[in-house]
């Protein structure tokens, strides 16, 4: 046994290209796994610890505005109401609780919302629901101030807080007036240290501590800047008195945490009274869109950011492992075929099949020993940039990197076990044949039915064509494996084509259609005609029914919430289809335009119908077009028509898309408008934020796809090498007969070329559908859909790339071909 193993070990040197290929494949698989998981697991571990130790909220909410009691109107007594508002309040005093019309209630709610008074409504109902669903909640207030691209959020420090406790990194929490603790990352990036003075709005503060104060993974500065930017976003923790003096826009909401063990992946909490139609959240609240956004951001961030990476890399690593197993299978099989006589002799002199087969375990052993170890260190090295991308906006204390048993088994034991089983199984099946069969002379090898049939079909073809195909079809198993491996290569190349630069492209495309700078949302409904801006009337609503163009109802399980957006003729927002055709003219009373994301996720097409309940009546809309937006869940409706459906006599708006510079600085907006503004959303900042947010995902995709291309090359190299190896005798004979190397190369090295091309062509739709399936599955988590497609040009480029890889592989193998001795054919078997 040991002698046999030693013999197999020595034989490795003669198969340099093949063993190097195995090592590289395993190294790539391990590198990818370690690089992504080392980063992800550290963030994930830190994340879960942080959630528990700091009692991070599970969700936040703003109480409903649906039910307003007559006593609640007293909360408005000390507010400086406008004439219209005062009139509405007077009307409400007469009609509450049950006799108010919908427009009065709509205005009343907007007044409560504007003065940030929702948190004082419906306390008893909230307590009842909290008891029933087992959560605690407490008021969270903060003030936001912007200064250019800097965002400062002031939060009062209360050491008795139950939820969202700050995590102190260094120094102390602020106790005295004008002392602040600031975000650790912000301090680091901006070279701030404890004891430094820091000035905001002409007020000097002393930094006494650095800390983390993340809402879930990263701190949410404001609804309009949901993605964290460590360089420009800072949170000041300060005592109550300093907070009171801090000048900024105040927001109040409730942070809540469920009492019992919380299951992060269980989404059932989304339904029911906490968020659903019966309870706290108002369906018609103006801020609903952004409230939903918070809800999504806080609870699902881990899934949005980490799960896709994990799923993608784990799946990919398994594919790589499978490819490695197939390659090892080919190599072991080839090796035994070459050593058939030797194996026959060993069996003839009494060695058992299992003893001989065991010697072929040298391939997985050497492959794992070198490949996985190499991959491990390369992975740790590559994980560093990824970790730095993550921590730049994840603002969490990260634990040190540790190799766990799970890691060890995934990196070393799983590949070793899998590849050892494959190698042993193949070797055993081959060497268990009787010695006399193994000792049989080569010319006596049977020709299978497939090869004979192909020969018959091609009998009128030129001799070289027949010769080529007779070699290709001589073993159906081998042909299948070559085709499969080529298919893998094709899949990897296609993945490379799909993935490379995909995110940048869809971002450019999406934001390219947005020529405005700011989205200004109002806490009331306006009917003036601001001609220089694009005006929208936005409401959140749920789709109540979907019907296909042919009349069949489309089933859907989960509630689909969309933004019904009334629009007329926007100047700055391009609503175009994939061929850049303007879709706005298609809008009519019932004709709507939906986003690509909405269409893709729900399999909706043009002419399908959507139904919405508005003011207790169901309304039908027909999809007249699908516009290119991969992020939004928007349904565009004619604004005039939408206004009338919601009971407005005038055509109103509550959102404005503007290019006006005044919205960059709240100080430049006049008081009257400022009072009505719910939020200002900088689209360019959002673009930058989203870009930085998906940087990590892009980085992973970039690594994966680049490695995929490298793997495709390695696989092609192995195929070319195996072709040369298995045809040594034929090549030698042809050389003896006087065929030139070029002619031999043309005939023998090209035998699988048509199959490689065929396999590549098949791989394109397979990979497109596979990626589509994965991304559709992940779409809910990552928050946008990705159009997966390949142009004909890309397809051709991919084909050229795979053929170049193959011919480069052949180029390497030609050296082997040239070295094949002429006397090889003269050797007696």
């Amino acid at each position, binding site marked *: 046994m040991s002698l046999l193993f030693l013999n197999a070990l020595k034989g490795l040197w003669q198969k340099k290209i093949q063993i190097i290929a195995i090592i590289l494949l395993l190294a790539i698989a391990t590198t990818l796994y370690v690089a992504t998981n080392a980063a992800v697991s550290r963030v994930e571990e830190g994340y879960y610890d942080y959630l528990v130790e700091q009692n991070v909220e599970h969700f936040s909410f703003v109480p409903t505005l649906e039910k307003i009691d007559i006593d609640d109107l007293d909360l408005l007594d000390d507010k400086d109401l406008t004439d219209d508002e005062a009139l509405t309040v007077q009307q409400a005093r007469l009609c509450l609780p049950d006799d108010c019309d919908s427009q009065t209630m709509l205005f009343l709610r907007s007044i409560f919302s504007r003065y940030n008074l929702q948190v004082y409504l419906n306390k008893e109902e909230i307590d009842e629901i909290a008891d029933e669903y087992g959560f605690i909640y407490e008021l969270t207030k903060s003030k936001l101030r912007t200064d250019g691209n800097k965002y400062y959020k002031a939060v009062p420090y209360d050491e008795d807080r139950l939820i969202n406790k700050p995590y102190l990194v260094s120094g102390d929490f602020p106790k005295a007036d004008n002392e602040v603790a600031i975000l650790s990352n912000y301090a680091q990036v901006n070279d701030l240290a404890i004891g430094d003075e820091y000035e905001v709005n002409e007020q000097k503060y002393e930094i006494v501590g650095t800390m983390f104060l993340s809402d879930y993974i990263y701190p949410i500065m404001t609804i309009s800047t949901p993605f964290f930017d460590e360089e420009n976003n800072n949170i000041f923790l300060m005592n109550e008195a300093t907070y009171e003096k801090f000048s900024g826009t105040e927001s109040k909401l409730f942070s809540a945490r469920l009492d019992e063990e919380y299951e992060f992946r269980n989404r059932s909490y989304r339904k029911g009274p906490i968020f659903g139609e019966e309870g706290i959240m108002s369906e018609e609240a103006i801020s609903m869109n952004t409230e939903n956004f918070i809800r999504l951001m806080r609870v699902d961030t881990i899934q949005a950011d980490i799960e896709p990476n994990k799923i993608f890399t784990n799946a990919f690593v398994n594919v790589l492992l499978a490819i490695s197993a197939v390659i090892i299978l080919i190599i072991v099989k080839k090796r035994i075929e070459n050593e058939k006589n030797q194996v026959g002799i060993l069996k003839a002199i009494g060695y058992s099949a299992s003893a001989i087969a065991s010697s072929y375990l040298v391939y997985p052993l050497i492959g794992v020993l070198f490949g996985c170890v190499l991959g491990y260190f390369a992975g740790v090295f590559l994980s560093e940039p990824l970790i730095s991308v993550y921590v730049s906006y994840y603002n969490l204390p990260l634990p040190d990197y540790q190799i766990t048993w799970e890691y060890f088994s995934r990196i070393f034991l799983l590949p070793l076990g899998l590849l050892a089983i494959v190698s042993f199984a193949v070797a055993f099946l081959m060497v268990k044949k009787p010695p006399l069969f193994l000792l049989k002379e080569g010319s006596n090898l049977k020709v299978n039915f497939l090869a004979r049939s192909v020969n018959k079909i091609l009998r009128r073809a030129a001799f070289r064509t027949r010769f080529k195909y007779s070699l290709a079809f001589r073993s159906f198993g081998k042909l299948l494996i070559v085709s499969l491996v080529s298919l893998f290569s094709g899949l990897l190349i296609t993945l490379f084509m799909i993935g490379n630069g995909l995110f940048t492209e869809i971002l450019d495309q999406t934001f390219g259609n947005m020529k405005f700078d700011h989205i200004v949302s109002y806490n009331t409904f306006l009917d003036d005609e601001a001609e220089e801006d694009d005006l929208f009337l936005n409401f959140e609503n749920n789709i109540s029914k979907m019907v296909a163009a042919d009349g069949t109802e489309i089933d859907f399980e989960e509630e689909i919430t969309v933004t019904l957006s009334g629009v007329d003729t926007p100047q700055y927002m391009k609503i175009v289809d994939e061929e850049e055709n303007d879709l706005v003219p298609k809008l009519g009373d019932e004709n709507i335009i939906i986003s690509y994301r909405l269409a893709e996720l729900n399999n909706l097409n043009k002419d399908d119908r959507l139904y919405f309940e508005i003011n207790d009546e169901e309304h039908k809309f027909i999809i007249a077009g699908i516009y290119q937006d991969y992020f939004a869940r928007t349904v565009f409706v004619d604004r005039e028509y939408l206004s009338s459906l919601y009971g407005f006599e005038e055509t109103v708006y509550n959102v404005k898309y503007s290019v006006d510079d005044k919205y960059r600085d709240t100080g430049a907006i006049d008081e009257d408008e400022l009072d009505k503004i719910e939020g200002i959303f900088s689209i360019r900042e959002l673009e930058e934020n989203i870009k930085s947010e998906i940087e990590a995902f892009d980085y992973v995709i970039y690594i994966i796809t680049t490695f995929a291309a490298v793997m495709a090359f390695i696989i092609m190299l192995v195929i070319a090498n195996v072709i040369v190896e298995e045809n040594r005798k034929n090549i030698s004979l*042809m050389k003896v007969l*006087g065929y030139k190397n070029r002619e031999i190369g043309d005939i023998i090295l090209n035998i699988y070329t048509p199959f490689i091309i065929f396999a590549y062509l098949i791989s394109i739709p397979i990979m497109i559908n596979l990626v589509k399936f994965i991304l559709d599955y992940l779409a809910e988590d990552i928050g946008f859909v990705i159009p997966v497609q390949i142009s004909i040009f890309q397809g051709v480029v991919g084909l050229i790339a795979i053929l170049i890889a193959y011919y480069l592989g052949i180029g390497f193998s030609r050296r082997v071909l040239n070295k094949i001795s002429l006397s090889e054919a003269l050797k007696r078997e």
Partner: protein
Amino acid sequence: MLNIYTLKNVKKIYNERNVALDGVDLQIKKGEIVVVLGPSGSGKSTLLNVLSGLDYPTSGTVCYYQEELNNKSAETLAEYRYRDVGFIFQSYNLMPTLTAFENIELGKTHQNDCDIYEIMQKMDLSEQKDKYPYQLSGGQMQRVAIARSLVKNPEVIFCDEPTGALDEKIGKVVLEKLQEINRDQHTTIVIVTHNPSIAKIAHTVVKMNSGKIVEQYSNKKRVAAAELRWV
């Protein structure tokens, strides 16, 4: 008769301890059958490799007609084999995926007047045209190999233990076919073997040992008969 091969002081040394050919001088006449006899390791296969252009001598000259082979490039030697040389091996070396007909076609490396059907008929292989090697007997496979070497109408056929894998009866048939080819087409045939009984068909017998020619003689009766035929 014209010399097809002239070897002068040919040496082939693999390393100091392994001298395969040690100063061989030999002349082979066109149209004769030469049998090279010798035990294993005597240098007979190396001699065949050097003559057929499969290998270069370390020193000395190997002339094919007037042309020196020892200083030709590998490409030129390939052309020489392509054009003028046929091979027959002990283990047939047929392509298992090609039929008997196609295996013969494989040997037709350039266009000539040779008709494969005619050659198959001559080799008694007409019935086996569409059979694959695994469906043929050892004798039939060796006849396919002979037919493959004939199809290019070569000047010379080199045979490496052509009957080594065959029983005596079938081996005899194969040797008869070789004689027939030599007789009908004046093809020079060089046979390397350790089987002394094959020497019976030779015009010239060359005995080798330790890389040297230790004995060389003509089978006078056969030579005379041959000369008579060729006049």
